[in-house]
């Protein structure tokens, strides 16, 4: 068993420098349509910000509230889209739609009901933000504290 782990770790070393892409996973949107993470967000040079959240995660909601307030300004400067990936399972999933509308968020919402995408990206804690440009993950932001959104904006401008 140890040999197997050693081989895997060595193999992993070879590929460490490979550019990381989003996994090929399809998720439902709030209308029940299947959306492909790789094929439906592939406009050339457009910046896609995938923000992982849940209805029970207060810092996630703070982040999305703050970003919602400045999104219009960001869009004037950058060609970007924010996709809020709800990792709620069936316990809280029904709360997503009224919460999103109640808060008046402008994001595209996708439902990662059994955490297939979250797992494929090895995300342990949310909030967690993945920035993708031309099919490649170019930036990751782990966690949220007040002010993270301005730092993220500076980063997005540099891409």
């Amino acid at each position, binding site marked *: *068993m*140890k040999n*197997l*782990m050693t*081989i*895997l770790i060595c*193999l*992993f070393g*070879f*590929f*460490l420098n*490979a*550019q*990381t*892409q989003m*996994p090929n996973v399809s998720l439902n949107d709030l*209308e*029940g*349509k299947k959306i492909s993470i790789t094929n439906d967000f592939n406009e050339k040079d457009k910046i896609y910000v995938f923000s992982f959240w849940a*209805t*029970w*995660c*207060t810092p996630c909601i*703070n982040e999305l509230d703050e970003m919602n307030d400045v999104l219009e300004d960001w869009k004037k400067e950058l060609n970007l889209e924010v996709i809020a990936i709800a990792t709620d*399972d*069936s*316990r*809280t999933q*029904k*709360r997503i*739609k*009224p*919460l*999103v*509308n*109640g*808060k*008046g968020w402008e994001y595209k919402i996708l439902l990662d*009901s*059994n*955490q*297939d995408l979250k*797992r*494929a*990206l*090895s*995300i*342990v*804690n949310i909030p967690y933000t993945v920035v993708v440009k031309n099919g490649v993950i170019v*930036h*990751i*932001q*782990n*966690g949220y*504290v*007040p*002010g*993270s959104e*301005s*730092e993220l904006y500076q980063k997005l401008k540099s891409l």
Partner: protein
Amino acid sequence: MMNKKIFLGFLLVAFNVFSQEKGVFSGGFETNAQWYLNDPDFLDEFYNPVSHPENPLRSNSYLLLNYKIKNWSFGIQGESYLQDALLNYNPKYEKVNVGTYFAQYKNEKIDVTAGYFYEQFGSGLLLRTWEDRALGINNSLRGIRFIYKPTNYFTLKTLYGQQRTGFDVSKGKIFGADFELGLSDVLKIENSDLTIGFNTVGRYEKTDIANPNFDNLTMTYGGRVNYSHNSFYVSSEFDYKSKDAVVQVRNQIDNNLIKSGNALLFNMGYSKKGFGVDGTFRRLENMSFYSERLAKGNQYNDMILNYVPSLTKQHHYNLANIYVYQAQPNVIINDASLVKAGEIGGQIDLFYNFKKGSKIGGKYGTKVAVNYSQYHGLAGTFYIYSPQDYSTEFLSFGKKYFSDANLEITKKWDEKWQTVFTYINQYYNKKFVEEIYGEIKTNIIGVEAIYKFNPTHSVRTQAEHMWANSDKKNWAALLAEFNFGTKYTFYVSDLYNYGNDDSRLRNHYFLFGNSFRYKSTRLSLSYGRQRGGLVCVGGVCRYVKESTGFSFSINTSF
């Protein structure tokens, strides 16, 4: 072992075959370590001082590696539990081993996975396999899954496997199928969405019992429908489980109580910009489902096949998580004063945003969330003595188990200040929910304030108080979190059970900690006391004992 060798061979072949193509490696690493200490001033409910376990230094670690090339993906997860698994985790997790692995081929229409996989049918009331490391759950199935999606509106899934338990798999064999059809696409209905789905899950477990009155095979069937039109939506699911022996007492199959089970879930809501309302109703009768009959009721959620979360609000306040409801799908009729066959109840949510510039909204708007949930046992007729039996009425409410009414108001005052005010009123029937004794009514007030010193430095404070009329009575809690830039956080918190009738048990549960984040990596170190009781994530709970010590965790993805 054989499986793992085959898998490794497969992986190496794949590397050679595709060596001209450039594949992509990704993965993640996580370790959670604890150093348990003795704490003579900290008594548990039996007045025993908290002492460290035999191996005081313990860690749970996970290394996940994925390799993707063209339409193929391969993955393997190594896990280590050294010297032992953290306290209160399933002791079946021990030493270093390969936890899961898979090989997957996926194109637009076909998705085939061999090895360990995660799946959910409908809302998960019949089948959900998932991983939750915080709770020590990994109930993935090892076998084969085939998904066929010829068009965007039709999906068929079939699967067969045995369920992971520790580093082994269940004796029970699981097979299932699920299909979902987007009717509105088929019928070309515009402006509305209508989806239907059906699924079936079977469990085959050969029983050791002589002359069983039940079949080795237990079948379940479910149907669901989703409809939405503009701002309105409604969905429903009904599930049925075929007759099977009830397990009332741990490790005891009841060959004389053979019952079927069922579940009904109904949800509807209306939402438009600035307003949302949602209501859910659920009734469960004898709906626990494990890949081995005797696994029922184990404290580690080992071999659990279906997902039966409590449909209540998941609070983020510490004191609101002391009396947490757990869904009651089980049958118990051993004692006339404590009979259960399931639960019935529901919850309502309301979200409203007072617009910016309005009188209540102020400059930045005011957000209000209201939630109410209430659950009861099923009313019916219960026969305690031989032969034991019960019959329930469909829509009548029995003993009250739980209720929670809560209100949350979030207000941003200016660029620097934001506050959240919360009021929670709970009723918790401990006797029925935990099968012990007691009945508790609580009122909780929580106030949270965030103040930004400058764009990247801020402080978050949270004060809570709980009035409880029995059990451990009143509690107070404080938390302060300082964010120095976006990468570093320091926090300190204390929960104080000052109202406990027994002065020896008026414990402080303090915690000091800090965390550092950079890109996809997070490191944290803390020192403090763990409150004994239920730790719940996503409606599934595990019981933890009191402990004191240092915690260290690191996680990263690549």
